[in-house]
């Protein structure tokens, strides 16, 4: 108690130093807490499943021409074969994620498009999905649906809906089998409803859809009886597809589910980078704090000497200083937690997550957090504790005592460290922003502005041509095209293309895209050779990447063989960027759309004022298909979603570098205040001797500029290395150039110069008589 009281009295006495040191520490800690939140969130992704160590994932991959091309899933026949052939496997589940499928679910007048996942019922056994009402349903009955709590309440309020009949997709009656608790946001299980996989036979109108050894659309999970048998499965399944289809070029691979988010999707890289940033910011804030506490070390050392003379041991002193620091750090942590709590909604909003403040208080994160606290106390307390207790008592008690030792190393280390952290973060922000902007503004090979789409459901699919004709009649619509996929997500590809003179060992993965004859005009893509197909000109169009891979000088009129069928090439188009912005364009073949493939209507408009257009389109759609809600979107929004990861990363690093800059400024301010105070006399003497204010300021500035330059020697190569590695993930990427680095170094030093100049100007313009009076 007494120590706490004493600490408070001390803090009150040294207002400037205390508030600067504390503010720096608090700002740094808020930053660390946010990084901590983010890292906790990433590392707890899908960790709530009780069977986590026994779940594995199977997916297919192609060896491709140069590198392995992985698919998210594997053929549907793989899963049943796993249970049959491996006694170690307890159960399996095939899963079609709900993000991609929206289905109309109606109950009475309530009609909503729900993100619907297709899954084997074993989904609920393998993963930990608690039920509020009902269960996963009776096995073998495909006409059942499981809803999330939020979804269920939209239809049934607080009632128990088990047994109620809802209308699915406007053509199937389904019984509500169960209602599950809403799942946390950090799981791959994202859906409003789950229906049995069996129902796909009906909705896809394909009886054998679940029995094929091709079609890698099925995410496949297995539950092992014991975690140890994973290696056996992983080793055994590689060539399982070839047993059924010897000609297949798809191989199978298994990985542990717990590695999925962090390692398979490579999120661990960002976790590592941000943990490192967190530690560096913590280090900078702590150094800042140490520096400002030791600034009053002359007084502290005297007190220490005195305490020794009245019988304190060195251990007493060290304990006293540690508890002092522990109390101050506790205050700083509390303040930082409070600020973090207040700012969390903004943070979540900015990075598109739903992190809960309470996630901090589960056992593992909380103990790590306590660990960070202890680390801070250790870092911040050790230097003063051992430094201050090391003086000889008789020295410190002399009235002329000054703790001169403190001058050099610590302060320089502090300044260089926070400079380095700031410069590194600043550069990273610039590079990530530049890369993101590069991706966003990249030449797509088509015009994604003013391009809308309508999702086709029910009658709209059947009468797509009518819809297209009616919509084209409105004055804002220039052109429209019926397609199978939006260019952001072309989900059909294969290696089944052959041509004359092809090396039999050469494997080429080609995307197959179906659309109609107005596609070229609608997306405004460029034709390189020949023509686009039309009603009187049947054939296929290939993109430049495909043409380059084949290598002929001209294509028009030539024939390619697709999966055993001869197709005539009518033209070659310039590459249009699809599916990913990060990679260079892959080969693509475009063919005329069949009725079963109609999924979207892409609409080219000539206006930025969409209200009228949307209204007209809605009316037309609802006249043709009154049962489904009108659903539309913008193509450039869909592309923006592709760079969401990069945009989030940019914002995150941006936030963190802003924090680091604040810590830097506070640290510099503290140091220069202390320095000018120490140099009051020197400044006075210099002025008496006729030195000009500007020259005095320059003398004070010089060491800071120098520290900034030294810091860049450390920061630049490290950032270069890390950022270069990050950029390697993108085939379409910017070049790292010197200017980015120079810019951030100049900016960081400039900030330092402004901060320092302001304080030194105050010191230098003081009346010399006043400053010389102190003795």
């Amino acid at each position, binding site marked *: 108690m*007494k120590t706490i009281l004493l600490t408070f009295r*001390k803090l009150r006495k040294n207002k400037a130093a205390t508030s600067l040191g504390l503010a720096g520490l608090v700002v740094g800690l808020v930053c660390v807490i946010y990084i901590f939140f983010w890292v906790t969130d990433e590392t707890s992704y899908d960790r709530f499943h009780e069977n986590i160590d026994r779940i594995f994932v199977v997916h297919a991959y192609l060896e491709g021409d140069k590198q392995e091309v992985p698919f998210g899933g594997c053929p549907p026949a793989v899963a049943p074969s796993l249970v049959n052939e491996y006694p170690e496997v307890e159960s399996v589940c095939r899963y079609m994620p709900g993000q991609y499928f929206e289905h109309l679910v109606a109950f009475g007048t309530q009609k909503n498009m729900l993100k619907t996942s297709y899954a084997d019922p074993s989904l609920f056994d393998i993963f930990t999905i608690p039920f509020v009402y009902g269960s996963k349903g009776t096995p073998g009955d495909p006409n059942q649906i499981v809803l999330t709590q939020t979804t269920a309440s939209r239809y049934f309020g607080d009632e128990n809906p088990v047994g109620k009949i809802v209308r699915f997709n406007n053509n199937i009656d389904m019984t509500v089998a169960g209602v599950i608790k809403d799942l946390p946001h950090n799981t791959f299980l994202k859906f409003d409803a789950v229906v049995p996989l069996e129902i796909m036979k009906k909705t896809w109108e394909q009886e054998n859809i679940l029995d094929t050894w091709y079609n890698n659309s099925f995410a496949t999970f297995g539950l092992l009886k014991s975690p140890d048998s994973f290696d056996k499965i992983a080793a055994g399944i590689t060539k399982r597809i070839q047993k059924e289809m010897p000609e297949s070029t798809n191989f199978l691979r298994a990985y542990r589910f717990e590695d999925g988010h962090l390692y398979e999707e490579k999120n661990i890289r960002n976790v590592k980078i941000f943990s490192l940033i967190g530690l560096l910011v913590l280090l900078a804030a702590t150094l800042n704090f140490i520096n400002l506490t030791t600034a009053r070390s002359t007084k502290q050392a005297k007190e220490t000497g005195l305490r020794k003379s*009245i*019988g304190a041991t060195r251990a007493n002193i060290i304990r006293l200083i540690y508890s002092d620091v522990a109390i101050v750090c506790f205050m700083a942590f509390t303040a930082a937690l409070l600020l973090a709590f207040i700012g969390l909604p903004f943070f979540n909003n900015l990075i598109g997550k739903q992190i809960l403040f309470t996630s901090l208080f589960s056992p593992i994160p909380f103990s790590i957090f306590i660990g960070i606290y202890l680390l801070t106390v250790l870092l911040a307390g050790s230097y003063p504790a051992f430094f201050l207790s090391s003086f000889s008592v008789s020295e410190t008690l002399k*009235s002329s005592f000054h703790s001169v030792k403190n001058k050099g190393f610590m302060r320089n280390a502090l300044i260089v460290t926070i400079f380095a952290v700031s410069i590194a973060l600043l550069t990273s922000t610039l590079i990530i922003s530049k890369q993101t902007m590069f991706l966003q503004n990249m030449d797509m090979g088509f015009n994604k502005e003013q391009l809308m789409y309508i999702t086709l459901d029910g009658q709209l699919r059947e009468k797509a041509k009518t819809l297209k004709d009616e919509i084209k009649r409105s004055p804002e619509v220039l052109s429209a095209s019926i397609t199978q996929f939006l260019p952001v997500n072309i989900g059909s590809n294969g290696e089944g293309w052959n041509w004359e003179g092809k090396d039999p060992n050469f494997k080429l993965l080609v995307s197959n895209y179906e659309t109609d004859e107005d596609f070229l005009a609608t997306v405004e893509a460029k034709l390189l050779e020949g023509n686009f197909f039309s009603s009187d000109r049947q054939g296929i169009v290939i993109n430049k990447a495909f043409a380059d891979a084949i290598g002929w000088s001209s294509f028009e009129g030539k024939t390619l063989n697709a999966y055993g069928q001869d197709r005539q090439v009518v033209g070659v188009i310039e590459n249009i960027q699809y599916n990913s912005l990060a990679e260079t364009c892959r080969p693509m073949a475009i063919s005329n759309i069949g009725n079963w493939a109609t999924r979207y209507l892409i609409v080219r408009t000539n206006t930025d004022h969409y209200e009228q257009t949307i209204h007209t389109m809605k009316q037309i759609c609802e006249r043709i298909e009154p049962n489904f809600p009108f659903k539309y979107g913008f193509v450039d929004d869909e592309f923006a979603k592709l760079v969401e990861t990069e945009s989030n990363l940019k914002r995150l690093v941006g936030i963190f570098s802003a924090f680091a800059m604040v810590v830097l400024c506070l640290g510099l301010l503290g140091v220069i205040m202390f320095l000018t105070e120490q140099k009051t006399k020197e400044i006075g003497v210099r002025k008496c001797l006729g030195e000009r204010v500007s020259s005095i300021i320059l003398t004070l500035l010089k060491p800071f500029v120098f520290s900034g330059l030294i810091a860049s020697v450390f920061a630049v190569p490290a950032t270069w290395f890390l950022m270069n590695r990050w950029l390697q993930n993108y085939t379409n990427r910017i070049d790292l150039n010197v200017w980015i680095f120079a810019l951030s170094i100049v900016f960081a030093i400039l900030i330092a110069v402004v901060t320092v100049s302001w304080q030194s100007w105050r010191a230098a313009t003081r009346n010399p008589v006043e400053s010389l009076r102190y003795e």
Partner: protein
Amino acid sequence: MIILKNIFKYYDNKFQRTFVLKDVNLTIKEGEFVSIMGPSGAGKSTLLNIIGMLDEPNEGEYFFLEQPAHQLNEKKKTEFHRNYVGFIFQAFHLIDEMTVAENIETPLIYKGVKSRDRQAMVADMLDRFNMVAKKDLFPAQLSGGQQQLVGIARAIVGKPKLLLADEPTGNLHSDQGKEIMKLLQKLNEEGITIIQVTHNEEFANYGKRIIRIADGLISSDTKL
């Protein structure tokens, strides 16, 4: 009580050795009141610090209560500070963030005195120095003389056998100084051995014995 034999204290520079104390021999008995005098830099404070075990001689032997003090380890020295000696400083060296009562109490905490006993002992001291009304004030709120009173109270609250005062009146004006010297005299009469360093002839005469030091050597030793 105190026996110093052939005490040397020096600092080594690159090319020469600077002596602070040269072959000092001194015996002080229990109950004495010694004033050490001499010009600045003569080695008075160093001698006092060696006696107080805040500093160590480079050569020579020091016996305190028949024990070889020059062989004591860190732990024993702390024991010595806790139980046998009290310090008074020219600059008072009170802890600014502590009240008068807390300042006086601090040595008792290190000595391991129980809280209730501490309160009683501090109250005794406050009572004795007529400072009861000031017990919750901070040092900055007191005059120099009052601060030194607190310093003395803190030095003697642990009932030391030896009181070491390094220019206790150096920062005070003469009236306050006289008060302090009278107080020291009274404490000496009550049985505490006192060694003080002073520049002031008048104040030196409050003691019973004056030792003069010049250039690290004892130049005279007079009993009054």
